[in-house]
């Protein structure tokens, strides 16, 4: 047995032992990368999973206990209740609001469960004349998931559309094209924290701010709109900021994708009598699909983990998923609870990545 294994290396040809050496060298060269990735990714990820099942709190005298799924059920418990109509005691009829003429319903607080956990209102909506309330035990977190996905979907839509438009415009030869390409790198090169502050100033709630100047000049508003404090304009503002910052990146990727489409294909399409639109749908789009797919995957994952913009522009007025986890950790020192939120974020993002890669057929090569 031992003789056989000992004899083996001797039988190997010189090429074989070279291969052995090569393999050993490869492992040594890869070792630092994997040690670091273990220290900054796998180990912390494991410890996040672990502490998500505890009530661990920083700077607290309370002993850390294992709480099972309590953090998760607190973060994710949601309920949908019908709001019964508000009945006038005297008439027995539903109360009608005197100002708006709308029928009134019982307030959400009376309907949402309080025991064993208290549910808070996320939103109400009407459906076939009935009124419903959507409640959650942690309304902030549920809202942050909803807002972050909406934010991601809308920014992605606009930056793809604009990026494609810009890429097609810049793909034609014209004097000053190099200058335009350089200009495209400006929003990309500006630090996210810096651009957030610049836009915060442009959105300021007086006519010192660019948007209030313009909206007042156009006669839409009185020039006092608190864009970043009003819940109706918060998300649109965030979307505008992010679209500005990331459209150039999208356009650059698509421009590179356009550059590798052979011009003979357009010439052939021209000969076949295809107009510009037909050329776009029959040649440009199909050949741009792989580039578009990769760009979409990267941008979606980026948008879903948005932090800088929300933390700087909104602080605690509106949360993204990441800024929610941050405030739970730093403001509440709730290590366990914040970890559970992080785990949920991790799974949401991973799910999106897998879905995308399946759906768009991205091949990794």
């Amino acid at each position, binding site marked *: 047995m031992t003789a056989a294994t000992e004899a083996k290396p001797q039988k190997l040809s010189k090429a074989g032992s070279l291969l052995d050496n090569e393999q050993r*060298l490869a492992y040594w060269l890869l070792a630092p990368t994997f040690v670091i990735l273990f220290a900054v990714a796998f180990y912390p990820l494991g410890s996040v999973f672990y502490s998500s099942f505890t009530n661990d709190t920083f700077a607290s005298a309370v002993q850390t206990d294992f709480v099972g799924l309590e953090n998760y059920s607190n973060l994710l418990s949601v309920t949908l209740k019908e709001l019964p109509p508000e009945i006038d005691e005297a008439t027995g009829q539903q109360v009608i609001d005197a100002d708006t003429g709308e029928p009134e319903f019982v307030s959400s607080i009376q309907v949402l469960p309080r025991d064993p956990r208290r549910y808070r209102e996320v939103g109400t909506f009407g459906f076939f004349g009935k009124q419903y309330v959507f409640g959650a035990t942690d309304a902030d977190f549920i809202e942050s998931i909803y807002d972050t996905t909406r934010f991601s979907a809308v920014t992605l839509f606009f930056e793809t559309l604009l990026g494609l438009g810009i890429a097609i415009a810049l793909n034609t030869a014209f004097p000053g094209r190099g200058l335009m390409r*350089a200009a*495209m790198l400006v929003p990309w090169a500006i630090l996210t924290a810096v651009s957030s502050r610049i836009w915060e100033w442009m959105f300021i709630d007086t006519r010192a701010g660019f948007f209030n100047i313009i909206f007042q000049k156009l006669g839409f508003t009185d020039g006092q709109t608190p864009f970043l404090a009003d819940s109706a304009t918060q998300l649109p503002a965030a979307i505008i900021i992010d679209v500005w910052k990331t459209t150039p990146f999208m356009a650059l990727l698509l421009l590179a994708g356009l550059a590798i489409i052979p011009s003979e294909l357009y010439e052939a399409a021209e000969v076949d009598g295809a107009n510009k639109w037909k050329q776009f749908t029959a040649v440009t789009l199909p050949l741009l699909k792989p580039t578009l797919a990769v760009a979409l995957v*990267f941008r979606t994952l980026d948008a879903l983990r948005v932090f800088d913009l929300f933390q700087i522009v909104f602080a605690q007025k509106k949360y993204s998923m990441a800024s929610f986890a941050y405030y739970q*950790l730093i403001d509440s020192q709730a290590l366990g609870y914040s970890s559970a939120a992080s785990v949920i974020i991790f799974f949401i993002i991973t799910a999106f990545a897998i879905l995308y890669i399946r759906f768009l057929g991205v091949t990794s090569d």
Partner: protein
Amino acid sequence: MAVRTVGPKKRAIKWNRVGFWLLIVLIAIFLLFPFYWAINSSFKTEAQLRMTPGTFIPRDPDTGTISLTMQNYSAVFANSVFLGTLRNSVVLATAVTTLALTIGSFAGFALGKLRFKGKTPSLYLILSMTMFPQVAVLTGLYAVIQNLGISARPSMILSYLLFTLPFTVWVLTSFFKALPDDLIQSAQVDGATPFQAFRLVLLPLTAPALVTTGLLAFIAAFNEYLFALTFTTIEPNARTVPVGIALFTGQVARQEPFGEIMAAAVLVTVPLIVLVLIFQRRIIGGLTAGAVKG
């Protein structure tokens, strides 16, 4: 017949040109206006900033003539806290870039040129790490740092490798792969070990790729905000530029000092834009390398 059709056709083409240039001008305004607004505001005094409506060029509130002030810039240059963040960021980003390039080029060479078992899983693992959401490990890293009492600067350097290293390895792997195999073989015939072949023959050839990836890693490290904000909570001296800009307080902390913030924003941005424009071809190449398969 042919002569008649030329007329309207020519006019149509002309209108196309006008529309096209209008589009180009619109795109340019869209891309550059916010930065122009920051420059504009950075040259305004407190009184000029409070003018309603705000002016598109700094103007005197009473006479309406153009008047620029340098007071925001001199305030920023006198602000030792802000200058400290600038120094922190440059040192930090340089250290991260150096580490990522060194370690990344080892891994890139192994994955791109050497034969060994487990290569494909390693590649997939590293590719998946390029999409890793940083927030997922935030509490874990924070707990480790708190418990071991590691100070903010080394914590940031180490944690920034989470997003710079996989990207560096990925790009350098494809670069090493593209180099001809004969280079190693002929070096080995000359008696060089594979590692010597890497260090003396292949590494110098990857210099352009190192510059590109290094620059992108540097900008990514310079831009990082989540870890920097979290790890410097109890150590304000270690704050980086993004954190400094986000938490900027002026000399007179009456209101948010937007004039000074904009001056600081311009000062940070101009060198970055210059750097990016000098290396623009390389950067565009590096950014698009992963996305476009030729």
